């Protein structure tokens, strides 16, 4: 992912490097003085494919930032589907996870919000219904009978929003489209639509916008047919039961203070995000409403 580090962050990164060396030395000294930390003390952070790609540089910067902010080592856990990460989180095998708004509302009674990304100044994003640039469709109806690419059955923007749109028309994906499939990645939806494998796709608007900047040739083969209303950005959540644990509080602080640190800055710049902030659960009420509608009209 060729995201560029912004100039202010470079200056901060230099200063951080000195501090980081000292910090590393202190940590090394501490680890020599104290007995080795056990694996169960490791903070496990789950990531879903909401990320643009499994970019090693991004993950490295994120790990460095979190490790520096937390008093314990951080492990980044990646899985192919939303469901796997959600399951791990619910099972307590992850301390926190960056999940989608849809699983959050599905398990809202078990999960709490740690932080929500801020995109263009707000913790909101949209779902895009995109079509191949050759397609002439101007609205959802124009996509009827085609092949449709969804991102993930547990994705809000990549599945629920479109499914809700169809439910409003008393349709299901199977009845409306000739064929549909899941690509398990928003970028894959763009690839599928751009190549013509699918005539249309449901994709995270934020991902599409960032890709338009980073991979303009690929995105140029797609066209946005419909943008959804603004919805709560995929949040970082934890089990409500562990919400008040010190590690989680430190983790939440590390996320919300990301802009203040060079590695965090690098992460945010690569993700094209302004930062993280705390948000009320009500942010996800529109998603909850869609979920409920779909469930009752299925």
């Amino acid at each position, binding site marked *: 992912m060729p995201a560029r580090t912004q100039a202010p962050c470079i200056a901060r990164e230099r200063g951080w490097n000195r501090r980081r060396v000292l910090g590393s030395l202190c940590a090394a000294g501490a680890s020599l003085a104290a007995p080795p930390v056990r694996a169960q003390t490791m903070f496990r952070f789950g990531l879903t494919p909401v990320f643009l790609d499994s970019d090693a540089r991004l993950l490295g910067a994120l790990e460095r930032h979190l490790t520096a902010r937390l008093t314990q080592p951080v492990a980044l856990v990646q899985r192919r589907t939303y469901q796997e990460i959600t399951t791990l989180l619910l099972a307590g095998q992850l301390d926190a996870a960056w999940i989608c708004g849809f699983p959050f509302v599905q398990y809202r009674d078990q999960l709490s919000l740690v932080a929500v990304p801020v995109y263009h100044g707000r913790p909101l994003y949209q779902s895009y219904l995109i079509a191949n640039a*050759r397609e002439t469709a101007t609205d959802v109806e124009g996509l009827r009978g085609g*092949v449709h*690419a969804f991102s993930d059955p547990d994705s809000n923007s990549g599945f629920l929003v479109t499914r809700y749109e169809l439910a409003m028309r008393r349709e299901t994906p199977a009845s409306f489209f000739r*064929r549909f499939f899941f*690509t398990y990645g928003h970028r*894959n939806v763009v690839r599928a639509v751009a*190549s*013509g494998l699918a005539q249309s796709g449901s994709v995270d608007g934020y991902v599409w916008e960032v890709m338009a900047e980073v991979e303009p040739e690929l995105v140029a083969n797609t066209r946005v047919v419909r943008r959804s209303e603004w919805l709560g950005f995929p949040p970082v959540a934890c089990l409500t039961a562990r919400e008040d644990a010190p590690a989680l509080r430190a983790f939440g602080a590390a996320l919300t203070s990301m802009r203040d640190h060079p590695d965090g800055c690098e992460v945010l710049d690569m993700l094209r995000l302004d930062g993280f902030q705390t948000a009320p659960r009500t942010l996800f009420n529109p998603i909850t409403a869609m979920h409920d509608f779909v469930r009752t009209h299925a």
Partner: protein
Amino acid sequence: MRRLPHPANWPLTVAVPLLVAGLMAAVASGVSWIVLARLEEDQGAYLRQLAATHLDGLAVALQPHLIRQDVWEAFDVLDRTSRRDGGIAARFAAARFALVTLPDGSVLAASDPLAFPVGAPLPAVLRPRLEAPDELVIDEPGRLAWSRRRVEAGGVPLGTVLVEMDIGGLLDVRRHALTTLVAINAGLTLTLAALGYALVRRLLRPIRVLDAYVERIRTGRVEPIPARFIAGEGSEFGRLFRRFNAMAEALAEREALAARLAAEEKLALLGRLASGMAHEVNNPLGGMLMALDTLKHHGDDPGIRSQSAGLVERGLKGIGAVVRAALLAYKEAPGVIGLTPEDLDDVRHLALHDIQRRRLRLVWKNDLPGWVGVDGAAVRQMALNLLLNASRASPVGGEVRLEANVGDDGHLRLTVRDQGPGLPAEMADVLRAKGGAVSPGARGLGLWTIARLLEWAGGSVEIAGEPEGGTAITLVLPVVEDAALERRPQDAAA
């Protein structure tokens, strides 16, 4: 336009290089054919291997997705594979598209979904490729190849992977090899032909030298081959040149000898001519002296004076004729000299002195019909010589006859008969041998002159012994209708 000569007659400098070039071209064609056939075979094997490797990878990657009929994952595999930089392999046989079909023939996914939409049946043109017995089908004119692989799980067919490849790269390599082979072989052939030409030209140089010097001999100039040519040649031609020079030397010596002999012969002939002339002048001299004597004693008698003066005049005329004849004969004077009966009658006067001195009876039977197309001077001289010889051979008081006529066969026949003891054999030989006779000696000079004149006039001689003794010599001379008398042969002029 000149016709091309038969190949057997072509010069070696052309034929050998052409032969070399032809052989080279034949060998080059054969080698090129083998190389190209081998290349084609290798390329086929390479393509087969390349396609098999490619399909193996695809089949393994696609199998789990085929089981689930997962459109995206199948596409992802095909798409990533097609985007992968194939390196050298891709340059020679680039995959144009890859697709995977389900057992019902519908497309599950293709690297080019726009051309092969999901769920659509495989286009009819590609269906035979899918069912081809061979995994690899090559369409050389179309510069395409297709390879397919059936994917199964536990014996259950899941689908088929089909890859279309652009084999233009491979064909270009083959074409490049062909052009390179043709260029190199053409270059080699031309070079060898040029070398052959230069070599054969160099080898044949001695032949050309020899030819030039043989040609000089033909045109009469005998020259040895200069040493500088001999020094430059190897053993065979050097030996040949030395032999030629030895031959040329022998030839030159022979020619010099012949020239010397000719010069000597010329002198001898001059001698004979002089004595012949003296003889011819001497013959009427006797008659003229007698006429002068008669004038001296009986000059008062006008009849005798007139007769004697006439005799002297005729004698002088005869001498003049002899001299003129000699001049004409020996200086090759051109022109026609006819013979009239009067011309022949003159001879009687020239011979009369000898006849009368020996008291012979001369029977003169001149039957010439008038002007006759023969060399009159020659005939007169021959007749005179024969008469003088006959009068010398005949006994005193005998008879000498001359008969001249033109026969039915168009020949002049001049016969002189005597009553002598017969012509000696060697004298007959001198007559018969004509101009080729050996030097006759003083006695036979008259006959030798006859022989030479006879040869020039193209005539022949008949010598017969008379029944009552004596000899008859008949000269037979061809008569030309027109005035153009044959010219005297060159050697006689020497």
